[in-house]
């Protein structure tokens, strides 16, 4: 999908293909939250604004925590978060949203690539155990037996392994930790928290930071949103007996096959990821979209409804896939939350 | 216009330091009074109390009385700003406003006070003041040029023009020629001779010949040593001071035996 050249405030031209039906919305809407969603959010905002030239959507990439807090205290009409709302936050959000309740669904699902910078090596296989040991700092050189065993054909140098992790608290980190905690429970014993648990390793701020740091040094390895890895080599992770490279489809698959968490609100769709389903790519980042069922203001309610519908739409998901390499939402989830979105109203 | 000044028992302090002690004198209108004395004896300090300019210096204060035509300048209902309009001052180093043209410098007293003045009146005032300061012919073609472009002597006359433009009644001059070359000095001395037709003039000078040339009456100040207060030793007609002073120290000073 070719993005339109930008212009002044209303310069976005009216080529909003099938969104024409929704085309008459106007006003300004502001949300905020996870920076991981920023690229996808850019695509969604552009798509929506092209269909509704008088509308302006803003998204502050202040981080998931800021997004959840802001959503809870009413500073953001919608939010993006790398983690589902916990009980306390849910209570605050419900109080803020009123009777329409909270809408939450994994609007952005993206594979996390395990990327490395090693001259002459583009791709490597690693079992979960190996990955955990590498990131713990137990495996210290690239020609370690554990790596060599899974890569009989690769020529591995004896370069030292430098782990680069996120220095900021991050959803990517939390999802990656969760993956290691689930698939290598004996090796990776630290509970996932969003903060990297191993001391003394190299780190950098933000996805662009870790990628930049990994590119700057030889023998580095990191984890990052797959769309960002550029020319770094990537790891095919062991699932069952197989090694799977990252791809949007394989990531979509793991979400599609994982169950929904029970006992939450009607339109609160939280998933319980299953990291060991054969043929799927289990290292994924699941980032949620948050909205209210009720808004104080009619115009705002209409805008949120239109925008969140677009996020959940097939078209919106494809736009995000193109712009951010994310995995499109499954029909099951879409069908589960769409009624809630349709019901958004003022009240 | 010109008015008489009576000083009675004046002590001047900088903070706790008594700089000038117990001065009483009378300055006659339409005459030139010269203050002479060695450096540091308090001539400038005393001069500034005559128009309350010393109040600008933090910690400076006076005890005693200075009366202008019988009105105490330090009276409770007297505004120091008004005092300074009535008793003008010219300083040792010429200090025209560097951001103003020659014309604006002359009009500074009017314009800085936000007074409205018609264009014609302003022109008249500029011309008469510059003529009064013997400067008109030299600058009439470049009134719009910055005043700081003039030579030292011209600048000093510009400052005199600026001072008389606010129509003061007394004019105080603190070593007005000490930064000037001899030609300019002579020009200013001539000017002082003209100005005394209209103003009461007090001039501080280091140069005894100058005092002798321009003044009608001369006051001699002296100081006993560093840290001691300055005092008025004697005051008399200039001729008397220079030919037969009453005090030995005056005689020593005017005959060049010290200072």
């Amino acid at each position, binding site marked *: 999908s070719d993005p339109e050249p930008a212009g002044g405030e209303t310069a976005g031209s009216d080529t909003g293909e099938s969104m024409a039906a929704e085309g008459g919305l106007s006003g300004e809407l502001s949300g905020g939250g996870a*920076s991981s969603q920023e690229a996808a959010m850019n695509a969604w905002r552009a798509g929506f604004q092209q269909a509704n030239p008088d509308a302006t959507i803003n998204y502050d990439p*202040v*981080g*998931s*925590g*800021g997004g*959840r*807090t802001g959503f809870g205290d009413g500073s953001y009409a919608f939010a993006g978060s790398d983690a589902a709302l916990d009980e306390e*936050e849910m209570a605050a959000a419900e109080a803020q949203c009123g009777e329409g309740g909270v809408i939450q669904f994994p609007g952005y699902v993206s594979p996390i690539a395990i990327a490395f910078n090693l001259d002459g090596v583009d791709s490597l296989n690693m079992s979960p155990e190996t990955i955990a040991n590498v990131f713990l700092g137990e495996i210290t050189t690239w020609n370690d037996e554990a790596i060599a065993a899974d890569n009989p054909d690769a020529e591995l140098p004896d370069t*030292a392994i*430098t782990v*680069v992790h996120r*220095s*900021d*608290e*991050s959803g990517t980190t939390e999802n990656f930790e969760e993956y290691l905690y689930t698939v290598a429970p004996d090796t990776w014993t630290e509970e996932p*928290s*969003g*903060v990297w648990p191993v*001391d*003394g*390793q*190299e*780190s*950098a*701020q933000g996805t662009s*930071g870790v990628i*930049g*740091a990994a590119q*700057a*040094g*030889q*023998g*580095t390895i990191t984890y990052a949103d797959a769309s960002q890895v550029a020319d770094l080599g990537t790891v095919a992770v062991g699932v069952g007996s197989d090694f799977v490279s990252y791809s949007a489809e394989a990531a979509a698959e793991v979400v599609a096959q994982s169950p929904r968490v029970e006992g939450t609100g009607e339109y609160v769709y939280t998933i319980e990821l299953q990291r060991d389903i054969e043929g799927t790519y289990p290292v994924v980042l699941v980032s949620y979209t948050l909205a209210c069922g009720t808004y104080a203001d009619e115009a705002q309610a209409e805008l949120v409804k239109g925008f969140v519908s677009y996020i959940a739409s097939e078209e919106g998901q494809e736009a995000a896939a193109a712009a951010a390499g994310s995995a499109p939402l499954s029909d099951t989830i879409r069908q589960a939350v769409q009624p809630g979105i349709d019901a958004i109203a003022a009240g | 216009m010109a*008015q008489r000044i009576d000083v009675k028992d004046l002590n001047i302090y900088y903070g706790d330091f008594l700089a000038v002690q117990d001065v009483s004198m009378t300055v006659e209108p339409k005459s030139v009074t010269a203050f002479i004395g060695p450096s540091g004896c308090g001539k400038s300090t005393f001069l500034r109390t005559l128009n309350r300019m010393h109040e600008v210096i933090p910690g400076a204060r006076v005890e005693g*009385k200075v*009366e*202008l*035509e*019988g*009105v*105490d*300048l*330090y*009276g*409770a*209902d*007297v*505004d120091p*700003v*008004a*005092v300074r*309009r*009535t008793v003008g001052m010219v300083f040792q180093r010429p200090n025209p406003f560097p951001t103003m043209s020659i014309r604006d410098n002359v009009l500074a007293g009017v314009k800085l006070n936000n007074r409205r003045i018609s264009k014609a009146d302003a022109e008249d005032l500029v011309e008469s003041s510059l003529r009064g300061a013997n400067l008109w012919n030299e600058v009439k073609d470049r009134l719009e040029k910055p005043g700081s472009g003039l030579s030292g002597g011209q600048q000093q006359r510009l400052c005199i023009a600026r001072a008389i433009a606010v129509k003061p*009644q007394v004019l105080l001059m603190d070593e007005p020629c000490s930064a000037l070359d001899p030609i300019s000095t002579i020009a200013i001395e001539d000017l002082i001779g003209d100005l005394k037709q209209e103003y009461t003039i007090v001039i501080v000078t280091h140069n005894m010949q100058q005092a002798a040339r321009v003044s009608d009456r001369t006051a001699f100040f002296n100081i006993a040593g560093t840290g001691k207060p300055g005092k008025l030793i004697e005051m008399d007609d200039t001729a008397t001071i220079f030919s037969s002073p009453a005090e030995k120290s005056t005689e020593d000073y005017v005959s060049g035996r010290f200072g």
Partner: protein
Amino acid sequence: MSITDSPPTVGSRAVRRRSSDRGFNRVFRWIAVGSGVLILAVLAAVALFLLWQAWPAITASPDELSAAVPRYPEDTSLIAYVGPLVFGTLLAAVLALGVATPLAMGVALFISHYAPRRIAQFLGYLVDLLAAVPSVIYGLWGFFVLAPAVVPVWEWLNQYLGWFPLFAGTPSPTGRVLATVGIVLAVMILPIITAVSREVFLQTPKLHEEAALALGATRWELVRTAVLPFGRSGVISAAMLGLGRALGETMAVLMILSPGYLYSFHILESAQQQTIAAYIALDFPESSGLAVNTLIATGLVLFVITLAVNMGARAIVARRKDFSGAN
């Protein structure tokens, strides 16, 4: 002083008070005083805000804190938690100051006393301009250009001077370490220190310069006997200004440093230190509730450090007053 009883004359009317002037004088004075007071009020408001927001963290128990703040180790008091951050902040600032001050003095002397007169003014202008380069740009430059470039230098230092605590440890292969941050901070504060020092050096009284020259001083001796002693307190103020900027710098540190939370002097090794300002900016986005309060408590600590540094600088300058150039 009594009011005279002599009859009013022309003169007496002329010197009477004009109340409107006095009124304006007073109003203007109060506006000026008011601005000064307003500044004090703003600063008090900032301090109160910090205290108010930090209070929940200050009063919380270590258990509550470690539950709310992901990075917070168990059984650690807030002070023990903030300690390494204070250490890192000071170490980074001191490094920056240590590098920048001598260089800045050199540059300032160059402009004030060495450079050909014609180009000196232009150089002064150039340096002023550099004080205005935004810190994100320093961050971008440090991240993309400087950090990769200094890796071999740090490795060399580590290899040959590794016995010295600062250069010990394993040098980082990416160069994103406190030494690099120190250099970037030094580059950032260099123009500030230079600008102020240059002004002070230029103010050296001709009187004293000529005194030195007349004694047969060479140019360097002139600088040593007249310029430097005169400028000392000015240079100290300049350095303090630079220190303030270095202590509070956020973006450049955030983008360049690979942080750690230790009391460590290894400035060539990654994951050793972190500064307070960068820490706040780094963790603020994902924080909520008590975690935010904890961040602001560290902000309060930084504020107190700044206060202390300023008081210290003032004390130093005051102690030398007897021999100061301003007399």
